[in-house]
């Protein structure tokens, strides 16, 4: 006996779309909007910057000038900004657990659904 899914009302369909929209904006956009996510790159400007002190040779100075930046002070933040790659191993392990756990969960639940699909398409397992 083939599974007969219930018919979803228009209101139900709209509600489901709304849930996905809220999930997308809530999980992805709101953290960005609130400044909770993003790059950990911070400038470490030096005092009294000169091109030489910022490690820029003559050719690089020409390149900066062609890009519209002739004052080393204006390039100070750009040149000295660095990512902070220090991290805790626990945080890395948590991330690994998240990613691996997610795939394990999805594959296991999918397999349960897949068996129903195969049984309905090909009949009960012999």
């Amino acid at each position, binding site marked *: 006996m083939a*599974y007969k899914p219930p018919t979803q009302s228009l209101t139900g369909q709209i509600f489901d779309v709304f849930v996905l*929209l809220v999930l997308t904006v809530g*999980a992805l956009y709101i953290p960005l909007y609130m400044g909770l*996510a993003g790059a950990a790159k911070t400038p470490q400007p030096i005092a009294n910057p000169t091109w030489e002190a910022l490690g820029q*040779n003559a050719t690089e100075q020409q390149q900066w000038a062609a890009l519209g930046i002739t004052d080393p002070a204006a390039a100070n933040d750009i040149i000295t900004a660095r990512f902070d*790659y220090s*991290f805790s191993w626990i945080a890395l392990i948590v991330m690994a657990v*998240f990613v691996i756990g997610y795939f394990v969960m999805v594959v296991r639940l999918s397999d349960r659904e897949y068996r129903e699909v195969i049984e309905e398409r090909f009949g009960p397992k012999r």
Partner: protein
Amino acid sequence: MANVTSTAAPERLQLLRVLGPAHVWALGVGIVLVGEYMGWNFSVGKGGMIAGLVACWVAGLLYTCVAMIDSEVTSTVAAAGGQYAQAKHIVGPLMAFNVGLFLVMAYTMLEAANAITVGFLLDTVAGMLGHSGLNQKPFIILAVMFLAWLNYRGVLATLTFNLVITAIAFVSIIVLFLSVQFGGSAVPLDFSAITSDPLPYGWVGIVAALHFGLWYYLGIEGTCQAAEEVRSPARSLPYGTMAGIMTLLIAATLTWYVCSGLVPWEYLGQAGTPLFDAARVTGSTGLMMLLFVGTTFATLASANGCINDASRAWFSMGRDRYLPSWFGAVHPTYRTPYRSIVFLVPIALIFALGAPLDQVVTFSILSGLLGYTFMTFNMVMFRKKWPLDTIKRGYVHPFHPIPALLLLILCATAYVAVFLGYGTQLIAMMCFYIIASLWFHFWRYRFVKRGDQFTMPWPRPNGY
């Protein structure tokens, strides 16, 4: 060949089969070529010049594995939705739902990134012409709306348009490279940072750079999204995809060479339009105009392909009731998934108008990365459930399972790369997919017709 109408509604409208290998190439390269025009350079920011180049080649290896695997599975599961249809037949509905979301999110975020770049480019040019402070938002909205309209009107016109503007954008990179090589730049190439500051972050910078190294090629797997609209998918899809990856490897290396030589790496690492900036440094008005056109065309071609691919994935999920079935409609005149096209416009606009470029790019990369991880075990399961002698494949990739294993190792490295500097976004994205998966399994799946999820004329899978 998948014929979705055979089981449910024979009178249902189908997508038109009008595309050839050149369109497949244009769809793949058109989406991706923008990766040379913006975004890849953040890899230089994360690790320095050498790390940027290593990331370019390692990512090229990752995508070669992706193209090999994808060509085999897609040439056999030739149905709209690409990897989504593969997941449905090989792993199961929940995996398919997730893969559909990966595709939609990766392409919609890429579309948003393209729109941001168009606005940024116009602002830069306006500033150079003495009109600084241009309001970018109207141009962002206009770009997204125009391309959505083009997609609404029909796939052939859309991808023919892509073919032309992609070719122009690719030629622009070649012309810039040749001009610089033959003395067309007022400022010489300078690679002294390679010796004076080779690895500003040490070896960890090389790993970190892989994050944005993916951007050189991200989306090439989109070639199989239009499988149901290709005249001869078993031949056209592998041919178009492989030609696309070769094109991109050449373009990526040339791009790194020109930009790293002409733009100081610290500036390059945070630039919005690196190739256009390289053209600015040459001092040549002709090159500046050419790269302005190239950047504009590359972003438009990419956004255009993204709308095409994201809407096909959304449409496929609607047609299968993984999403409300209202999205599974085909336009009676234009034969396009018009409701899906229109629905995704505001989502792209939310991120294009309200999020920074590197973070939008990261969301796109993360969704792509999850999709590549799926491909590794999908390939192994495909060969296990249907060994080579059980079903006819359009293309059989060599050295199985080495490409799948290599891809898994590179994906794991890429997760660590994203974690370095963008760990919070990685966690946010995983939370999104975990909650969405639970929602689908415990609520949405009840509306799905079980037997209709398997439409390929294949025998029963081994072990089931």
